[in-house]
Every structure is written in C-alpha cells, then in structure tokens.
C-alpha cells in the first residue's frame, strides 16, 4: 500500500488513526502544488531494484524535483532518466557515471543513495561533505569505524541523514517501541530481533572475465572503496552482497539487523549507545545493554504469520510482538489501546516524507545518523562475536573491545585507494 492509499484508508478508519507528521503540510509548503523554487532538488546514486522503489516514493512527493542520476551501469542510468523525464515532461534529468560529478552540483539539496552496501557509508560521507542531505539505504556501514565516522561527519557538516530503515516510520513498529519507551510494558527485560542468517565469512575473488566498456559498466567505480579484484560479470550484477556485513567480516546480521536490531535499540532508548556484551548461544546471538536489558537475535520461535523482520519486547508487566504483516500482538488487549491503522507491506513512503520534512526544518529524522551508527555498531559487534564464535565485550565510550586485540582489529578496514572517509 502506498502512502496515499494508506491515508485514504486511515481517513475512513477515523480521524484518530491518521499518521502523525512532524510538521503539517502547510508548514512545509506541500498542501498543494509546490513552486519550483520551494522544491527539494534531489539526485540519486546507485539505483537498482530497491533504489527504484524508494525513488518512486520520492517522486510521489510534490515538493521534490528529481534532477540527476549517477550509476556505474549505463542501463540503469538510462532507465532512471527515462522515468524522470517522463514524469516531468522534459529531457532534463542528467546522468553521471562518477559520483564526484553529481556531488559537485551546487543545485542539488539531497541525495538518495541506494548503491550496494559497499558504497553506502563512503557515498554518504562524501555527500555530506559536499553539502547534501542524505537518505541512504542500509546497511549504512561496513564496520564499527565507519559507523562512528558516519555519525561524526553528519554532526560536523550539519547535514540531515536518514537511514533507509523505514520501519521506524511505520505505525505498528512505532507503536511497539512506544509501549517499551513509555514504560507500558514495565521495566524492560528482553528484546528480540530476527536478523536472519547469522553466518559470517570473508569475501574473496571470483574468476576474471573480460571487463565491460567503462561507459557500459564502470568496474573501478563499482568496486569503489572495496579491495581490488578482477572484473566478474556475475559479481557485477549483484549488489556486492558479501560486503553487507562488512568487508572484513562479511555476511552476518547486518542485512536485517540494521532494521530489527535498530528497532530494539530505539525501544531501549539506545540511539546513543550500543550493547556491551555479546555471546553466541546455540543458534542465537545474545547481547546485553549497559542498562541490563538483554537482546536476543534469533531466527525462529516467532508468532505464526507475523511476516518478515519480527521484533518482540518483553518487560516486567507485559510483552508486544509485531512484524511486517502490520499486526500487533500483546500480552493484554489494553496494551494495544490507541493503535493506529494497520499498514502492511513495509512501505517507505512515510520514512521518505519524514526525511523531506527534516530537510526543510533541520529536525532530527526518525533514523538519524547517531541512531544508525549505534544500531550498526551493535550489529557489527554481534557479527564479530559470531565470527570469532566467542564472547566479546565492547566499551561504548572508547569504542573498543578492551584487551581483545583480535576483535579490535575487526573494527575497521582500509579503503582502496584513492578513497578515504
């Protein structure tokens, strides 16, 4: 269901069910047609399948003017340009192969970054330094060091960052988080998340194949900050998945953990901290926060038909569980008082709208850089415990694993020349 369809449903369901917005439409000049000078000028970097969906959410908004696409693949550049030009009835969408060119444009206010995970952090940081606000798909970073740099950079540059963790803007997840944060579950005890596939490994090389012409597919830019390896067509088709959990410790719980662990962090008021102890337990990964709350990452044991990305929060007085089917389940019906209209299908429209509002007001978006930073740190540290198959302890002030030389080395990874963050 898209945002407009949802709003129609919500209106039918009753006034109280409407989604709250940070600011009313009229404040932001989006009550009706928006003058070109008032629009947020948007560009995009790396638009594959996911990016195409999120870009669609942006294009639905009247106060957005999409002007440029950057992608290392010509086919994608042409596709996005055709889509934008058709929407605006012109031929003005510019195409770029090298992101440094789109970053150099002074007229662009904000960027949608939906490259493979290998590029997310570096592209976001470069965009912030170039004065752009950023909506970046997740996982947003490849390791702990990148997570900290991401947060530092957006603080230093004063730019707005929204991680593409759209469940922070969906009513069922928000409601569950509120139950936890407002004490309605009693003192929080345990948070449960399903990161899916908690196995780690190291990325390697695939067999060398003849490269494409640079204009068709720019392998060097596709590799970007990842360590060099020869062109391989199959790899080039992918989204660099082996870098999802970080190049040094690939795989693991970053892909889904950046959503569900992030929601647990939010529920625990841990947007500015991370779990401090992590240990594998059977097929699960357990962790503990500074306030004693336990985090359990597990793949099984969820309520039936709850959908992907389930979470469960347990307190002394009750529990709540929800997932992508949009329904909420709780220990008591009274806990569900005031729940908003169900939205299934985890659309990104609300999250995109929240980002655009914050671009205008400079308010803190739902999935701001600090929140993304610490949610990712928790996932990376969990990955390190999984990779080493033993307990690790993390110092959230010094950002190190005290006395644990091996774990400490897994906090960062050199970027391929000439890239730096």
């Amino acid at each position, binding site marked *: 269901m898209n945002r407009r369809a949802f709003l129609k449903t919500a209106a039918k369901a*009753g*006034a*109280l069910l*409407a989604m*709250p*917005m*940070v*600011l*009313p439409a009229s*404040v932001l000049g989006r009550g009706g047609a928006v003058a070109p000078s008032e629009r947020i000028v948007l560009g995009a970097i790396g638009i594959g399948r996911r990016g195409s969906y999120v870009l669609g959410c942006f294009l639905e908004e009247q106060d957005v003017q999409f002007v440029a696409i950057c992608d290392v693949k010509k086919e994608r550049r042409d596709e996005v340009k055709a889509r934008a030009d058709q929407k605006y009835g012109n031929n003005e969408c510019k195409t770029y192969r090298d992101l440094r060119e789109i970053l150099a444009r002074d007229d662009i206010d904000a960027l949608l970054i939906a490259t493979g995970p290998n590029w997310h952090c570096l592209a976001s940081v470069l965009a912030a*330094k*170039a*004065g752009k606000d950023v909506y970046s798909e997740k996982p947003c970073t490849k390791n702990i060091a990148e997570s900290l740099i991401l947060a530092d950079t957006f*603080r*230093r*540059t*004063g730019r707005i960052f929204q991680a593409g963790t759209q469940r922070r803007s969906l009513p069922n997840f928000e409601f569950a988080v*509120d139950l936890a944060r*407002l*004490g*309605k579950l009693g003192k929080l005890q345990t948070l449960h998340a399903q990161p899916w596939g908690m196995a780690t*490994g*190291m*990325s*390697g*090389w*695939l*067999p060398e194949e003849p490269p494409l012409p640079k204009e068709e597919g720019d392998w060097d830019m596709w590799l970007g900050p990842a*360590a*060099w*390896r020869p062109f391989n067509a*199959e790899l080039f088709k*992918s989204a660099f*998945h*082996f870098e999802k959990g970080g*190049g*040094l410790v*690939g795989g693991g719980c970053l892909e889904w953990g950046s959503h569900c662990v992030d929601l647990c962090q939010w529920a625990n008021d841990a947007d500015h901290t991370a779990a401090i102890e992590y240990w594998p337990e059977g097929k699960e990964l357990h962790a503990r926060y500074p306030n004693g709350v336990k985090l359990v990452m597990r793949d099984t044991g969820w309520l039936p038909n709850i959908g992907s990305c389930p979470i469960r929060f347990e307190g002394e007085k009750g529990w709540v569980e929800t997932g992508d089917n949009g329904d909420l389940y709780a220990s008591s*019906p*009274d806990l*569900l*008082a*005031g729940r908003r209209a169900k939205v299934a299908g985890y659309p990104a429209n609300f999250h995109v709208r929240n980002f655009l509002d914050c671009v205008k*007001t*400079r*308010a*803190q978006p739902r999935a701001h850089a600090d929140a993304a930073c610490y949610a990712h740190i928790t996932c990376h540290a969990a990955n390190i415990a999984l990779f080493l198959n033993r307990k690790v302890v993390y110092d959230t002030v010094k950002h190190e694993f005290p006395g644990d*030389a*091996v774990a400490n*080395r*897994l906090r*960062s*990874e*050199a*970027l*391929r*020349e*000439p*890239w*730096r963050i």
Partner: protein
Amino acid sequence: MLAVLLAAGMAMSMVAPETDTTKLMAVLRSDAPPAEKAIACKSLAIYGNKDAVPLLAPLLANEQIASWARIALEAITDPAADDALRAALGKLNGKLLVGVINSIAVRRDAKAISALAAKLKDADAEVASAAAVALGHIGGQTVASALAPLLAKAPAGVRPAVAEGCILCAEKFIADKKHDAAVKLYDAVRKANISKQNTLEATRGAILARRSAGAPLLVEQLRSEDRASFNMALRTAREMPGRDVAKLLLAEMKRAAADRQPALLLTLFDRGDADALSAALDAAQAGPVELRLTAINILERLCHPSSASVLLTIAVQDDAALSQAAKSALIKLPGDGVDAAIVALLKQSSANARRAGIELIGARRIHSATPALLRAAEDSTVANASLKVLADLAGTAEVPALLGLLAQAKDTAAIEATLSTIFARQTDRAACAEKVLASLAPAKGQQKLALLRLLRSAGGSKALAAVRAAANDPDTETKETALRTLCDWPTPDALPDLAALGQTAGDLKWKILALRGQLRLIPQQEAAPAKKLAAIKELTPLIERAEEKRLLLAALGQIPAPDSLALIAPYLKTDLKEEAAIAAVAVAEKIVQKHPAAVASALRDVPNATSDKKLANRARQLMQPTKKK
C-alpha cells in the same frame, strides 16, 4: 593452504579465515596467484604481527594487491606497520601513494607529520589533498601551523582538503581542551575563500569552540537572512549544552518570522530541554496554526501528563486539524489523571466535547469509564458513538444495563450490535443467555425480535430451547425471526431442528435456509467423516441451485475422507470447477498420507479445472508419489 572458493556463477564468494600466520606468510612468500595473496592479507589483518610487515610492505607497490596489503598494515598494531607505511611515502606516487597516506591518517602516525607536510606541495592535487586531510586527522599545533597558511595559498583543487584538514585539526584541539587554538583555526577557515559547506562547518566549530561565549555568533547565524546559515545554526544549537542556549532559542522564537518558528521549536525539542515542554504548551494554545500543530506534535512525542489539560482544550475545538492532532497526542499520554480528565468530558454541555471524550475513552480503552458511557448511551447526540465504544470495553457486568436500554429503545439495532459483540468475547456465554432470557419474557415488538437474535450470539441449550419455542409463536414476525435464528444457529445442536424444518416447511424459503444451515453445521459435528458424509448424502437430492452446490462443496472440503473426493470429483467438470478444485485440494492435503492413490486419482483433473496456478501446483505436488525416507 587457503581454501579460496572460486565458483563461477556465484555472486558471493566467501572464504573461511586462516588463523595460522606461518601459513599465511608462506603464501605471501610464494608464487601463489594474487587471489590467494589477497585473502592471506585479509587474514593477516586479524592475526598477523610485526613478522608479516616485511612481507606486506612490498605489496604496497602492487596495483592489484596494494589495497589488500593496506588492510593488514592498517590493522597490525605493531609500530613496524607505521614504519613501513612511512617508508613507502618516498617510494610511491599517484593513487598508491594516496592510499598509503590515507592509511597513515587512519593510524594517526604523528611521526609522519613532516613527511606529510612535504607532500602538501606535491604537484599531484590528490596527493596534496590526501596529505592535508591526513595531517588534520593527526592534529596538533605543528599541523595547524602547516595547514593554516595554505587556506589562502593552496591551489584551488587542494584548498577544500586543506579546509577539511584544518577543521579536523580544530576538532582535535577541542577534544584536547585547547579551545583557544580551535577558535583561531576555525576563524581562519571562516575567512578563507572556500566552499559554502566548509564555511558553514567552520562556523559551527567556531561557535562550539567558544563554548558559552559562542552564543552571540549562534544568534548572528540564527538571524541570518541566509537560509543555509540559519539551518546550520539550528543544527549547532542541538549540540550546545546548557539552559542558556534553551533560553536563547526561546527568545529567538519570539522574534523570528513565523516561517522560522516551528524549526526553532523543533530544535528545543531535539535538544531535550526541559523548556521544550513549556514552550510547546505555550505555542500549542495560540498563534499561527502551523506553529500550534508543530507544538502539539511535540507534546505527543514528549508524552508528559501535564500537557493533558491544554490538549483537551484543543481537542474539543472546532479546528479539525488542531483537534485531530490534540486527540492523537492525548491517546498516548500516560496517567490515571489523564483518564479522569477525559471521562469528565462526557459531563460537558458541548456535544463536541462529549464526542471527543467518547472517542478518546475508546482509543485509550478506559474500562473505568463504562458507567459514564452507559449514561452517554442514553444521550441521542452521542449514543451510537458510546455504544460502539461499549462494544469494545464492556463485559457481562454491563449487560443488564444494556438490556435495560434495549427495552426502552426506539431503534434497537445499535444496542443489539453492541451486546452481540460483547457476547462474542465472553467465555461464560450461558450467563449472557440467562440475562437475555430474563428479558425475553416481558419483551414485545422490536425488542423481542432483537432478544431472539441475541440468543444466537449467546448460544447454549437454554437459548436454543427458547428460540425453538418462539418458532411456534403465533406472531408471524416472532416466528420468522426465530426460524431465521435457528437457520443461522452457530452450533450443530440445531441440526435436528433444521432437518425437521426442511421436511415440514411449506415455504421454499425455509427449506432452502434449513438446507444451508445443515450444510454449514454438518462438518462441525463431532462425528466420524463417514457419519457426516452420510448426512450430506441425505441432503444431496434437495440440492438443485448453484448457491447450495457451492455450500455443498465447501462442506465436503471440510470432511477429510476419500468419499468426499468422490463426491467432489463430478463438479470438476462443471461451472463450479474452481470451488470443486479448492475443496478437492483441501481434502487431499489432509488424507494424502493415508490415501495417496485415491488422492492421485481424484486430483487428476484439478490442474485443468482451476485458473489458480498456486492451487494447481499444490494439486500436482499431492499427486507425486510419496518418497520413502
């Protein structure tokens, strides 16, 4: 030897790390292909020590492996790695040199300052830029002295990096409590001919480095006509500690143009200032509607019980947007006091207030409000709204009162619906039935008909007996309502009544309704499939119309027996083939383990009968021979 997984066609190649550094170093010494050396470097990043450095250092000049070697050299903690990277500064150029400089930056190697400073003059702008940023990461007065003059002198292509280096260096000054040095450097950057973004960053730093003395500069930016400067000030104010900054923001909010006020209020909120609550409470009550809406939204997010009275006042006002926002906030507010204030709305003379109160009672599920809701149910202006909420909140305790209302109501539909919903939720429905039966005797007209229907919702043998008796009532309306209730009865204990009705009724309408009721209830019986099928077969001659045939197929679909499949099969070649296919697959899935042959035979026509591809596939899978484990 490392097991490098090189599988053509695999989008992902993962390798297990080797932990034996002797083996890893042997790979680097050998003529192994670059792929193996690359992975060895990665493992050495985790497990390697100074012994690996001499093997890694030469790889810094190898275009294919250099990035892998630096992964290891950046990670190995021994100073030998610093020595190797520093030594490479004099041997490399171009991108490889930039890579080494970047690694030195990550390691914050202060011994590299002079060598990096020399690179600031490199003809290659990328090298000079990398050096400037690296120096910034290392920080210190020597670095500041090296970088600051270049803000004016560096070539245009290098100047952004110099500005970045200066800002990084200034940040380090702040971290080291050298605020004066930081201010000096930030101010130098602000004066330079650099990008707008760099200037904004330096201005932020200049404000923060001055600490409390930075307030005037913050105010200057907040008052700037330049939107970017105002925006930067908003973000900077979020980072500044202290109540004074909150007061400053409040003062600016009062003097700012209307279009800037919401952003200033949001800044207060994001800072977590205690003043945000009082500011939002003030702003919510009067002023531009945009600011009021922003304030109400903030009150919702702050969730403080003290905002209840302001929000309640707004919630009952005529402005729909403000009222809706206030109600949305009130739903979340914690506290019994908030509940009491909301319930008190039902005593107000304004119908708007009473409606808002009922809406909020329902949304917050205030159980203690049921007496007030029952009183409101007698108020024609809000009765229906109140009954809807009672349907959700009331229990058996409220049933007598609702039955009392029903006895006096002109329009019984809403009360009947409320009671029906309440009954459906109860575990002790017999008690509900008793209460309805007690009201039934004296009831007449619409009330009596409503009570008969409610007996169906309550269920039980006594309720069924009463309905059965009413089916013989001389009053036509009573009799028809009772018969319809019987035909809709939810449990199989009504089956004998329905069978009798089907046989004795003169009116075709009752025969059909009785038939439908039986088709619905037969599968629900606690009986063997054979008995159920026998009952169904007795009805088969009576089934003529498509509507009842559909019900027949639905019933058969719930009876797991090979005979069910036999009865369904003929319909796979009729207009009802889609329904038949669904029924056949439903039965087959339950009996396939015991009767695979019957299933395979019965489902043969299903894939052709249905247009549902998923259903057809389920049928095909069921027809597959069972694999022996």
